[in-house]
């Protein structure tokens, strides 16, 4: 097979960072090529170089043997390169169809809106990527937004498809659908380049795998030959423990009790319907579900960021349904929100200021309303140390940190508040295996310390390996709550689609 795309010894530097420091890659016509690597290894940078968003400082990119130099994404698009970015490149205020056709709209001077919608509809039917062309993107779940991104690329008839961590936000079923599309494209001879942290799916879909570490490509191996352990070690450069072991534990008193809770979002749509459950001390309750089925709203409502439209939330036997978020924090609820950049951190603030964000009115951060800069700084230094946040400089702005380290910073802050309840929404989204390992260990340590944990995740494996019990949400309702030790991927996956297996089956898990 001939090379469609070659990357030869490419370098890209940012101030103080060698993001790509000698990268070689070769994507052959009609293959699915995966790129693996830790957070910050330089994968996204490489893809942005190929798609014209960045230009290499040194090295060469060749397309079908000819060297190319893209001054802007416009040129790359013309050359047939389509990219789905890790952080979505969508315009929330516009419709799905607007987003998809943007830059190549039907019409002359006038924008033929209806034609665009029809074309998008046809396209989405062809690839079985169902989405309403007239919906506004801001109303879509993350999974649907992913579809829009892919349709955007397909609309332009890309000759090379690049996907940067496309499955991070998908359910197993959705991921499988995506892989079908990729196989379809491959069959038509369109090469696909895709990034993932998930070793299993990479092995299942890719023909070849390139591993990056610290800005360099360290190996390219045929997918069939690579074992997960081998790949993980290549990525991290050391031995990685892939399996967490969770010692059995008897849960204590009820910490959080949710009764018939209903929640409407800011647009007044009912997102959580009549949900009831309990979380006990020393227990992890996992909430599984396809993205957009009310999990985030549920977590927000418990944290007080969304008002309950019905029902009751009790924490440590006290009704907190009407309390403002600050008061809930004070009583011992910690919250790792889904969107770390928008909710969890103030990117323009230093790490010290971010550390004090939630507890500024208490020592060590302040006394009688007056900030205590030195103790706060010392406290933050300890935090960075204990949770291995890099760089370990409390005066750096949160915006300077990589996504993984931002997440660690939030977790560090929330965990060290010594809460009775931790709500964690997708705490490992987009993190590499090393970072995930660390965060899982932290969650289990909290469980060990007798805290109650509500874990919302789209990663079934994460839910299955960490939870004591699993609640599955569909369409705003809890379909079922099952004990984790007996649950299987298939069972949960089925519940996630809203299909309730016969009562008896769920009721007799001990058979297994």
């Amino acid at each position, binding site marked *: 097979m001939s090379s469609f795309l070659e990357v030869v010894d490419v370098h890209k530097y940012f101030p103080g960072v060698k993001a790509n420091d000698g990268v070689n890659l070769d994507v052959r016509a009609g293959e699915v090529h995966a790129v693996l690597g830790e957070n910050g290894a330089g994968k996204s940078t490489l893809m942005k170089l190929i798609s014209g968003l960045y230009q290499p400082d040194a090295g060469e990119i060749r397309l079908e043997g000819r060297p190319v130099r893209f001054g802007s994404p416009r040129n790359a*698009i013309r050359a047939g390169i389509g990219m789905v970015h890790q952080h979505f*490149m969508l*315009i929330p205020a516009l419709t799905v169809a607007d987003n998809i056709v943007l830059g190549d709209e039907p019409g*002359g001077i006038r924008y033929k809106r209806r034609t665009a919608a029809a074309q998008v509809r046809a396209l989405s039917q062809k690839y079985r990527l169902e989405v309403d062309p007239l919906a506004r993107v801001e109303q879509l779940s993350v999974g649907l937004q992913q579809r829009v991104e892919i349709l955007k690329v397909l609309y332009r008839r890309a000759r090379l498809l690049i996907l940067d961590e496309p499955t991070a936000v998908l359910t197993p079923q959705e991921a499988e659908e995506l892989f079908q599309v990729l196989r379809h494209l491959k069959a038509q001879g369109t090469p696909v380049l895709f990034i993932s942290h998930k070793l299993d799916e990479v092995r299942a879909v890719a023909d070849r795998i390139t591993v990056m570490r610290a800005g360099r490509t360290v190996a390219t191996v045929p997918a069939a030959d690579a074992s997960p352990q081998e790949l993980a070690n290549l990525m991290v450069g050391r031995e990685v423990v892939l399996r967490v072991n969770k010692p059995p534990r008897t849960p204590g008193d009820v910490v959080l009790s949710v009764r018939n809770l209903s929640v409407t979002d800011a647009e007044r749509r009912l997102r959580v319907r009549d949900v009831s459950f309990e979380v006990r001390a020393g227990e992890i309750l996992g909430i599984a579900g396809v993205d957009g089925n009310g999990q985030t709203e549920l977590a927000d409502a418990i944290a007080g960021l969304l008002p309950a439209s019905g029902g009751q939330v009790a924490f440590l036997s006290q009704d907190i349904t009407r309390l403002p978020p600050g008061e809930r924090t004070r009583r011992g609820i910690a919250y790792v929100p889904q969107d770390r950049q928008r909710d969890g951190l103030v990117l323009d603030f230093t790490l010290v200021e971010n550390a004090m964000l939630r507890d500024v009115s208490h020592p060590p951060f302040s006394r009688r309303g007056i900030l205590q800069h030195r103790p706060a700084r010392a406290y933050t230094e300890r935090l960075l140390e204990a949770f291995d946040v890099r760089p370990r400089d409390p005066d750096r702005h949160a915006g300077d940190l990589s996504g993984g380290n931002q997440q660690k910073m939030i977790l560090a802050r929330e965990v060290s508040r010594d809460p009775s309840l931790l709500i964690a929404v997708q705490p490992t989204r987009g993190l590499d295996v090393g970072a995930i390992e660390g965060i899982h260990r932290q969650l289990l340590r909290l469980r060990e310390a007798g805290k109650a944990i509500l874990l919302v995740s789209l990663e079934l494996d994460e839910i299955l390996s960490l939870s004591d019990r699993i609640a599955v949400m569909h369409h705003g309702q809890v379909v079922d709550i099952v004990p984790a030790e007996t649950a299987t991927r298939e069972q949960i996956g089925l519940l996630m689609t809203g299909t309730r297996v016969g009562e008896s089956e769920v009721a007799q898990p001990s058979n297994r």
Partner: protein
Amino acid sequence: MSVLTNPQLWASTLAMTVPLALPAIGGTFSERAGVVNIAMEGIMLMGAFFGVAFSYWTGSAWLGLVFGVLMGGLLAAVFAWAAIRLAADQVVLGMAVNIFASGLTAFLLNTLFGYEGTPPDTPPLPFVSLPWLGPVFSHQSVLLYVMFAIVALSHWFLFHTRIGLRIRAVGENPLAADTAGLNVWRLRYAGVIVGGMLSALGGVYLSIGILNSFDVGMTNGRGFIALAAMIFGKWTPVGSFLASLLFGFSTALGIALQGQGVSPDLLSMIPYVLTILALTGLVGRSTPPAADGIPYTPIR
């Protein structure tokens, strides 16, 4: 109420709407493209001054209009260059442009024409009389009708053309627009400069549309009211127009109600009070384009 049935009230309303609606729509173009523009006042002054100056020098009000609009566009282009290319703080720049333009127009007026003001024989733009539309339209500047056309055209342009879609896209998320192959900078320049020309046209209206002279500070804060109208109108041309209309109406009402014993100072508050009431009572939240005011500097 007889005040409300007096056609002059409505004629005044329309006449007072034009110099607000044009810059408000101008601001809308700029901000839809993602560049916060509080320089309408200054750009209007440029348009007003050069409108008169060129009308006098060339002897043609239409050439005055063209040059007034071009000079406003030129100032907007300099503003745009600093805001876009240099990623400078757009609010600071806007204030700078306002101060600069008010100084420059006063300075030029005094050095070129003297303290008496611009020559009285400067030709103005024509008034248009459409008596069959009623007395309200019996004596209005030709620019009133131009404004109606601009409201409709701007709406069509922003919401029904391909460039309009692209301009809105760069104002919402320039990075996404860039990855979709759009030229973010060029679109932003277009938005700011077209917007500047519309603001300048508002200035031209004041100086040679309904009058034929320029005076120091003759915009009298209308550029800032237009800013409010733009926000009030939720960053849409039609909304901007309606907000300007409300403002024009209440100003005209304030004039009409004078002379019945109430202090003219108190009556002058009407437009401002009404605006606050309308804003808190009916209109509520208005959200700017998501990337409004955020410079986009691609790393390449």
